Every structure is written in structure tokens, then in C-alpha cells.
């Protein structure tokens, strides 16, 4: 039996008017309108001077009731909505949803579709990490990486645009496979991109990895141990930076990941610097996966034989994938009709954000910004 109470502290704010003046403690609001909270996150900070005594997150500003919408749409109609959750990694969202419904229907996408899915999802992982790196570095005070990463992310968005017409909320996949065959020269362009971006990642690292300011601002900041990460349900690069070698792509492979050769980068200290290194290494691994997938992509159909009107049999399924931010899960319940009875989205950002309090307690206010950045949250997904 372990004690979980240390994770569960909440701010007692009720009495603050009476004690405000004669106390050293100060309660301030960060957000919801704050450039460094990456959206509409409000964090109530309880401070003693510059030191953080505790935090409380207030979320829900972007709540759109995605799960309720799902119950009132058909399975196919709901597909584009999932792109609007983690809009930075829309392709991953779509992949998780499509695979969950496919499991419920007991069909499998054809091999070629799986490879297309892997290529686009990994491209999206790089795009997501690039956006994270640029904004995270900007929060800490380095402006240059933002321009570098957005310049290179553009190439990925161009590939998405050429493939399916959309750059951000792509709706790239359909239940049962893919809607579109790859365009002429897709493989060539993806290969060209891999060659183009590989030295660029070195370039980002040159700017930051040994940069004294960067190291000082990130090393030993927002430390979370492997035990705490697991207790709090933290997944993705944050978990791996704490030394847990766990990736759903390896642990419970989906799409065509079982045929890919790649490694799971891990950190040791669980601090902001390690999380940075893990994500940089993940980008390189993603390039490795993409080049393998492009080499091996099989010919064949891209759509499984599924009925026009989807009516999955009565039952429920949970399927999760390794999204750029962690475990993205869909719990889908079917009642045998054309509309899902219930769709539950298990968002990685929402669960990871719970760890914020533990990570910043005892640190400085300026580090809160660094830790929010390093958690890599997207509020569209936190609030759904």
C-alpha cells in the first residue's frame, strides 16, 4: 500500500481575504489569457516570494462536448471531429479513432493503408515535436528555434496538403483504411523531406543542447520520478524521460509498427532537459520509421471491405495509440445502431497535466512556464 496523498494536495483558498495582508503567501492567477500557457489554461499559484507552494489548474475553457457530439453523429460523421482535439497532431487522433472503430467492426485496414498511416502519423509526430520545441524554447527565452522549427514544419504541412487537401485538421484516414491513394511522387517527396530535415534537427540541437542558458533553465527543473509518473498516469515522452522504457508502438503494436525497426529513447533524470533530449531523439526515430515505411510500402488496396453504413455489433472496445503526447485512447461503446452509444477519449494531455502540481512545487515561478512547456499540452485535447 502506497500513500497517494502527496499527489492530491489542493489549494485552500477560502480564507485568503482575511489572511492576505499579514501573510507572506501570495495567490496569483496565471492565465487563462497568457501567451505561455499554450491556450486557455488558468493556473492558480500560491507563492511564497518566488517559490511555488502549490498550484491548481482550472480547465474547461475550451470544452466543446466532443464526447456528447459523438453520441449524436454516425461513426463516419464523427471522424473529422477528433482532429479538433489535439489539433497539433490531428493525424494521430484520426488514427486512434479509426483503429478503435475498426476493432469494433472486427475489420483490419489493408497493409498499404497501414503503411500510409504510419508515414503520415510519424510525419505528424515530427510536426508536433517541432511546434513543441519552438514554443517551449520561446517560453524560456530563445526566439530563434521558433523560426527554424516553423520553417521546417511547413514542409510536413505541404505534404499533408498535397495528400488530403488540409494542412492542420487533416481528416487523413477513414474507418477501414484511407480515402486517398498517395499522390504521384509521394514517396520521393517524403524521402526528400527526410533528407532535408535530418540535418535540421542537428541544427536545433546545436542551438540548444549545450547552450548555457538553456541548460541552466531546464536541468533539474520539474523533476518527476518514474514512480510518480506511473502513479499519476503520465505517459509519452514525459514518462520515458523518467526512465520508463515504454511505448505503445512497441508494447502493443498497432498499424504497421510491428514491422518497423526503431528504438525507444529514454532519459534518466526526469527533468525538463531530459524530456527535451527524449523528444529530439524521438524525432530522429520517427525519421527512421518513415524511411523504412517508404522503402517497404506494399502495393494493394487502401480500403478494407466495409459496409457503406457502419453498424458495429453490440459491444465495447478500448484502443489506444502512442500519440506524440502520450497514450491516446478511445473507449467506444456500440449499441448496434449507426451512432456510437458512447465515445470516451482518454487524452494524454489531460492526464499529464495532473502532474504539473507535483513538478512545480518548491520551484520558482519562472519554472512553472518551463514545466507547462515541457509537458507539451494542447488545451483542445485537455478540455475536449
Amino acid at each position, binding site marked *: *500500500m502506497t500513500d*497517494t*496523498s502527496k*499527489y*492530491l494536495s*489542493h489549494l485552500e483558498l477560502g480564507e485568503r481575504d482575511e489572511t492576505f495582508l499579514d501573510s507572506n503567501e501570495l495567490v496569483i492567477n496565471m492565465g487563462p489569457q497568457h501567451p505561455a500557457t499554450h491556450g486557455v489554461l488558468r493556473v492558480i499559484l500560491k507563492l511564497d516570494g518566488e517559490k511555488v507552494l502549490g498550484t491548481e489548474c482550472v*480547465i*474547461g475553457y475550451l*470544452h466543446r*462536448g466532443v*464526447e*456528447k*457530439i459523438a*453520441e*449524436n453523429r454516425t461513426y463516419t460523421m464523427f471522424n473529422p471531429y477528433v482532429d479538433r482535439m489535439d489539433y497539433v497532431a490531428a493525424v494521430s487522433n484520426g488514427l486512434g479513432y479509426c483503429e478503435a472503430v475498426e*476493432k*469494433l467492426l*472486427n475489420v483490419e485496414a489493408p497493409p498499404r493503408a497501414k503503411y500510409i498511416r504510419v508515414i503520415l502519423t510519424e510525419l505528424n509526430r515530427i510536426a508536433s515535436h517541432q511546434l513543441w520545441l519552438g514554443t517551449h524554447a520561446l517560453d524560456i527565452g530563445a526566439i530563434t528555434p521558433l523560426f527554424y522549427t516553423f520553417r521546417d514544419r511547413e514542409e510536413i504541412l505541404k505534404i499533408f496538403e498535397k495528400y488530403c487537401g488540409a494542412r492542420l485538421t487533416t481528416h487523413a484516414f477513414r474507418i477501414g483504411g484511407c480515402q486517398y491513394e498517395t499522390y504521384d511522387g509521394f514517396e520521393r517527396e517524403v524521402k526528400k523531406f527526410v533528407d532535408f530535415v535530418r540535418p535540421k534537427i542537428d541544427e536545433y540541437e546545436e542551438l540548444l543542447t549545450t547552450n548555457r542558458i538553456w541548460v541552466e533553465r531546464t536541468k533539474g527543473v520539474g523533476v518527476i520520478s518514474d514512480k510518480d509518473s*506511473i*502513479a*499519476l*498516469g503520465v505517459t509519452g515522452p514525459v514518462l520515458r524521460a523518467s526512465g*520508463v522504457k*515504454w511505448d505503445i508502438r512497441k*508494447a*502493443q*503494436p*498497432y498499424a504497421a509498427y*510491428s514491422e518497423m525497426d526503431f528504438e525507444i529513447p529514454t532519459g534518466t533524470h526526469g527533468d525538463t532537459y531530459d524530456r527535451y533530449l527524449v523528444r529530439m531523439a524521438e524525432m530522429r526515430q520517427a525519421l527512421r520509421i518513415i524511411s523504412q515505411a517508404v522503402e517497404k510500402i506494399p502495393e494493394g488496396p487502401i480500403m478494407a471491405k466495409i459496409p457503406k453504413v457502419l453498424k*458495429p*455489433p*453490440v*459491444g*465495447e*472496445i*478500448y484502443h*489506444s495509440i502512442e500519440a506524440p503526447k502520450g*497514450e491516446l*485512447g478511445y*473507449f467506444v*461503446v456500440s*449499441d*448496434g*445502431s449507426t451512432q456510437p*452509444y*458512447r465515445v*470516451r477519449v*482518454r487524452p494524454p494531455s*489531460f*492526464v499529464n*497535466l*495532473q502532474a504539473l502540481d507535483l513538478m512545480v512545487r518548491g520551484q520558482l515561478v519562472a519554472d512553472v512556464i518551463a514545466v507547462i512547456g515541457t509537458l507539451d499540452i494542447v488545451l483542445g485535447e485537455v*478540455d*475536449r
Partner: protein
Amino acid sequence: MADDNKSTTPSPPGGEQKPAAEKPSGAVQPTPAGKPPNPTAVPPKPAAPAAPAKPAGPVPVPWDSPMVAKLKRQYGSGIEPLTYLGQNYMVVDRSLIPEILQVLRDEEQFDYCVDITAVHYPKREKPFDVVWILYSFPRNERIRVKTMIADGEPIPSATPIWAAANWLEREAFDMFGIKFDGHPDLKRILLPDGWKGHPLRKDYGIIEQDKEWVQINLGIESGQ
């Protein structure tokens, strides 16, 4: 794929063969076929129209493993372990709830609480399914634990077992109004504190909203 990494668990092909074998019996007793044997897997509302129509697809089959056998010995009929499409879950009695979760974490190494959520079946006597999705890092195994509770019936919180349950339970409370006993700070998380109603209940319409709250706090007639 690796969900069913247990040697005893039939993999998806097994799930496919099963319905073929059971089809005749389903045809003999059309309406009740879905309900009594596995009441939780079938939402009661559509069961009546859906059951007599066409082949019913795969059905949950009993799940057997050393862990399940052990739990079964301990708790008897309080738990019903099942496999559906290669995914294992157990329907447990409401009275076993904090205990079985504790056992799963402490003795069976389910150290990661992936998700806690609920499903609303308004026509059932106990209208809420509460679902815990668990994962074990050492075993690389995923299971679901499910129980049924009545409207307004409290259920023990899992926060002393997994800290991750904190926000997940708050969301289930916010969306369904399920009360988790012993939760340190059970309040709304996505909707504003003063909001009335729980939107993911089936009797809450998709364009329904707390008009009073909207008028007072936003100063507009309606959010629609």
C-alpha cells in the same frame, strides 16, 4: 494485438468462430438472448430491436487465466470475467469495488490506471456503468473492470490506490454526476462550478444548457 498475450485467451479469430457456433441458439430465443447472460455488455434500450435482426456478431466469451481463477476462488460469483474481441474485462459486484481494485494493483501489478469513465443506460435498474481501464507495466496487459451503480449511489474513490484517478473521477462526476466517496476534492472540472446538470447523461439533450448560468454569467440570452 498484444492485448491478448495470455496463452489461455482466444485471440480475435477465436472471437470470430464463436458467434458462428452460437448463432442457432441466438435464433431460438431472439429477444432475451442478449440480455440475461451478459447484461452489462448490452445496452438495454436497443437490445429489443437489435436482437431479432440479422446475425449479432461476436459475443463476449468467458475469460480464463491464472489470475482470473485466483480472483474467482476469492470472490466467487462477485466477478464475471469476459473476453470480447480479444480484450479482457471483468464485471464485478458493486460491493467489491475498492477491494478488488486494491488487489489488482497490489497483488496483480496493475500499476497504471489508464482511465476511469462511465456509461449511462437510463432504462436499466442500475443505470450507470463505471469503467476502470487498467494497465500493468510488468505484465504488458490491459484489462477493464466494470460495475453497475444506481443513480445517486456513491462509489468508493480510487484516489488512494492510483493518484491518476483524481481528475478522471472529477470528470466522471462532472459529466455523469457520479459521486466518488473519499475523493479529496470532488468538484466540476470541465464545466463551471455553478453549472446545473450532467451533460453526458442520456436525458441531457445535445443543445441543452444551463440557461440560468449562461444568462447570469455571460449576459446573453442563450449560448445557442
